[in-house]
């Protein structure tokens, strides 16, 4: 049973990943639509970042994590180096939790 679940997940996930790559060639997309694809990806990534920052299992994610992400986002906006953004976000959340902030 377990092996069936893992194989189904693996095959399904790979199919999604590969389908986009393969479809890109098969569908002769007009330039207007092609121009939308990076925007669609940006929207998905922004939505991933936003939901990961703000929610946990369908509910609000507490304070420490959104605060950490906010610090990282501000630093990114000010063009801080990527590593600084990531470390500052993690450190902020970790320190807040250490202080007992949820």
């Amino acid at each position, binding site marked *: 049973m377990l092996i069936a679940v893992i194989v189904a997940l693996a095959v399904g*996930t790979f199919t999604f990943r590969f389908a986009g790559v393969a479809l890109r060639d098969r569908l002769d997309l007009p330039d207007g639509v092609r121009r939308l694809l990076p925007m669609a990806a940006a929207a998905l990534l922004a939505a991933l970042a936003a939901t990961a920052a703000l929610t946990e299992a369908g509910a609000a994610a507490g304070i420490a994590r959104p605060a950490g*992400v906010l610090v990282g986002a501000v630093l990114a906006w000010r063009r801080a180096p990527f590593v600084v953004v990531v470390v500052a976000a993690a450190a902020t959340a970790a320190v807040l939790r250490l202080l007992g902030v949820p």
Partner: protein
Amino acid sequence: MRTVKRTPGPAGRTPAPSAPGGRPRSIGSALRRDVAAIAAAMVAVGASFGAIAVGAGIPVWATVAMSSIVYAGGAQFMAVGLIAAGSPFAAVFAGLLLNARHLPFGLAIGEVLGDRWSRRLLGSHLMTDEATAFSLAQPEGEPRRRAFWFAGIVLFLAWNAGTVVGVLLGGAAGDPATLGLDAAFPAGLIALILPALRDRDTRRVALLGALVAVVTTPLLPAGLPVLLALTGLAVLFLPRRRDPVPEPPPSGGAAAPDREESTC
């Protein structure tokens, strides 16, 4: 009236290493460092996956197999929870719903995988949120292609190495939230997509998409809200406000647009 308020540009600082001239075959040191930062976080989260899976009674071989052949962190955590709860079908369904977003990713960055089938098959398997984001953050062409493969391979190795470490350490692997890693990933994604958001249309699409996803998250099963972010593309089809407003409309309440009112 538009106040021209530009963002406080950090004077004279180049935003990104743009590799002027020449075609260095190596990966830029900035990209190497950036990917390494995310890879380090992935080792830690992978370790927590390994520890949680083994702790939930998943055999070691299955835990390691999930990281290498499914290779999708969110779906793996979700599947372990649902398998442990005795719902294998839900584990597959929920995991696949969560991973459906990879299809549009493939549409967007498919060209970086090249024309060879072997590359396409391998590259598809390496396609994660982070690899896609690192890739799209680079200028089109060679830099984008190189960033995808570098991030894709390094992150795959990091995730799988982390899983093995977690399996070995068990409960000692620790909770990634203690280290704040749950904040590190969204912050990293935001940093990667910010350059793309300088484009006004992309920014509007992404902001609306993110808003739709957050608002619908409490209402829908995981995975769907992020897919719904694609509705953000709708802003491109709204009647566009003309940028230079020549004259303010006669004051006295809502300026009636000559076309239709909002048709909600």
